[in-house]
């Protein structure tokens, strides 16, 4: 970034830097104008609420500074440990599933089936993602109730004869992963497919001429070349996963309370804010989630060089 600043300040582009940075960057008013609309919205609905949450997390209801008091208070709450354990278990299952399965499916759709079939499947995979979050949970409420489910024979074969048994606490992470995968994976399959399309035909042709099998090509050529897209997907899936709220909240109401109302940290923050009237404690929980998300993103970005500009 500093390089770019200096380039702008100097008013000329040194040839050596053009070589290093590939395409030179030029400052122009038009650029700022284009990003301004989004920046205003980001400030209003992203940055300012975050700063407000940080402010709340370090103060009490009267606005007095309390240091880390809010954080220790929420950590000591009896629901804090379980809700973070739930979300970490859920994230582990969901990230592995989404990364492995979407990439495998995308590779198969790209190189193992005809273009027409591939198009049909991409469309089919994408449909659930087009449903709004709430609607897709409602679909699963029907799917998971042995009394009304079209696959009730499967549920019964697995030993579930009532909705209550399906919603046993130990099944919940798997249920939420199922819902999340069903709604979210289709979109990522399409994105991964697009990424695979980016690999030039010459590379693929060279691999074929060298005698690489389709699986070897996938493992040594295709997947390494879309690595950045996979990291990008992992970051966004992680961020979305930590904020799990709608699914457990709806299952909680739909099951008439059989699901813990503070199953996920986001729900716990909600309970703090709106049942205990403790907006400061809720903000402290949100800061925990923010830190978790930033740490994960930071590690993935620096390790993968996601935003490093390719050197020529």
């Amino acid at each position, binding site marked *: 970034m500093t390089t770019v600043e200096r380039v702008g300040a100097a008013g000329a582009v040194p040839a050596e830097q053009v070589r290093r940075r590939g395409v030179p960057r030029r400052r122009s008013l038009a650029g700022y104008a284009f990003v301004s609309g989004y920046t205003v919205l980001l400030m209003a609905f*992203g940055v300012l609420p975050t700063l407000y949450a940080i402010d709340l997390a370090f103060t009490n209801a*009267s606005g007095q500074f309390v240091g880390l008091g809010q954080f220790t208070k929420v950590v000591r709450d009896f629901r804090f440990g379980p809700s973070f354990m739930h979300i970490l278990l859920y994230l582990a299952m969901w990230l592995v599933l989404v990364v492995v399965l979407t990439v495998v499916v995308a590779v198969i759709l790209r190189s193992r089936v005809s273009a027409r079939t591939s198009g049909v499947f991409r469309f089919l995979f994408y449909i659930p993602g087009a449903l709004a979050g709430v609607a897709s949970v409602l679909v699963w409420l029907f799917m998971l109730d042995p009394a009304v489910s079209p696959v009730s024979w499967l549920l019964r074969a697995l030993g579930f004869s009532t909705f209550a048994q399906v919603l046993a606490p130990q099944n919940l992470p798997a249920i939420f992963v199922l819902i999340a995968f069903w709604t979210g994976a289709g979109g990522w399959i399409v994105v991964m497919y697009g990424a695979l399309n980016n690999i030039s035909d010459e590379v693929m042709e060279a691999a074929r001429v060298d005698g690489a099998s389709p699986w070897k090509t996938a493992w040594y050529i295709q997947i390494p070349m879309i690595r950045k897209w996979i990291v990008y997907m992992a970051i966004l899936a992680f961020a979305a996963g930590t904020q799990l709220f709608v699914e457990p909240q709806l299952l909680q109401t739909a099951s008439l309370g059989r699901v813990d109302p503070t199953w996920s940290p986001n729900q716990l923050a909600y309970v703090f804010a709106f049942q205990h*009237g403790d907006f400061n404690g809720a903000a402290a929980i949100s800061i925990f989630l923010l830190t978790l998300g930033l740490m994960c993103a930071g590690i993935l970005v620096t390790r993968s060089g996601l935003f490093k500009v390719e050197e020529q």
Partner: protein
Amino acid sequence: MTGRFPGTSNSYPPKIQDTKGPMMSRSPSARSRPRSVLKLAAATIGAALALTACASTSTKTTSAQSDFKQAAQDTSSAITVWADSTRLPSVQAYQKAHPDVKMNIVTYDGSADGSTYLQTKVQLFDRTNKGWPDVVFGSPTDVTWASEPTSPSAQAYAAPLDQGLVPQTTLSNFAKGSLTPCQFNGHTYCLRNDIAQVVLWYNKALMDKWGYQVPTTWQEYQALGQKVAKEHPGYLVGAVGDTNSQESYFWSSQCPAQELTGNTTLRVNLSSPNCTRMASLLDSLISAKSVSTQGFFSQGFTKSYGSKVLMAYGPSWYGQYLFNAAFKTPAGQIAAAPPLKWDGESSTYTGNVGGGVWMVSSHSKNLSAATALTEWLTTSDANLKSAPTYPAYVPGAKTWLDNPANKDYFAAPISDAFQQAANDVWTGWGNTKFSDATAWSSVVLPALSAGKTLTSTLPAWQSAIVNEAKSVGYTVTTQ
């Protein structure tokens, strides 16, 4: 699907609440400079660590003042009314009878099933300083928070009605103990809409056909349950899987699950014999399969068992809302008997499942119109005569029982059972700041579904109640 139930701790299908999390929005660009953000975060936390905490995290709100600051009154201004769909027709009837009163009527979930929609909204209104509904129907649990300020700068949402709004003569006509959930610090913050005293419901047609006597004690009930299991397998004498089954059974058994021993002190002792006797009674009937671990109101119950319910120990609204509306049992079969007694005990106690309240906002700009509506809803014969549930106002309850439309459905007179039960409600089950539905449904019911016994689940239930009670500020004893 059946409609909604009048008992406030029950409604089905459940209302989907505002599902937006309180989190701030995030975007990928927020993460594009992770290192600098991480540094900033580290610096912030470091700075916070360096400074010692100089104030407490909790700012104790002063106990509710008796006087509240009235908003500037304008007797011609419109009042906003929030009611659940069961109570909506009553509010609409008032509007029809009083066309000169300007009213905005809003339907919401009525705090059913432990919903905190009203509480959530009032928290937000307290922060924005506007938007409060003038009159609201809610659950007794709502009064516990509405009678106190939600933050140091806020004023308690509920207006103390005994402070010149509702005459004392009216207040004293409510059924014995029915205003207890409304009373805090010596003031009355709500008017009780209905009481939901627990009685023994039974299918008289089936009992007569099989030659069974209606039980009068818990021991007889247990014996009959065993007998039914043997002679008519598949028929039920009860179900414990609803969000409020504990109020039917454990409340009736005088189990100290949440006994308020002071304003902020709570006694929770599920190892008391009053709790274990009920747990083992139910365990024996659950294992005999004449008590279901599913709920009467759980999905699919009507289809599988609706016609096989021989007895149900539950609130006064079960008759119309469970047997008539949900199970669609034909008229002339169902009857109610007085609450069951324990052998060897001199008096009978029973539970209470729901029973709503009406509150007036202390922020209302038109207190006289808001109070007039609330009084009409809870005390007028015009409304109570055909009220959906048993009125808490004694003269109104008589009118209600005299109305043939409220009794036609039943196979035998219900007045005696209802009136006796109304006086037998045990007062030791406190109206706490947390809903008793949460621990029961999210801890006990999943354990029962997994095949554990109630007796073995009592310790887990107790610790769930204790944890919840402590988190909202109660000092808990378990003796």
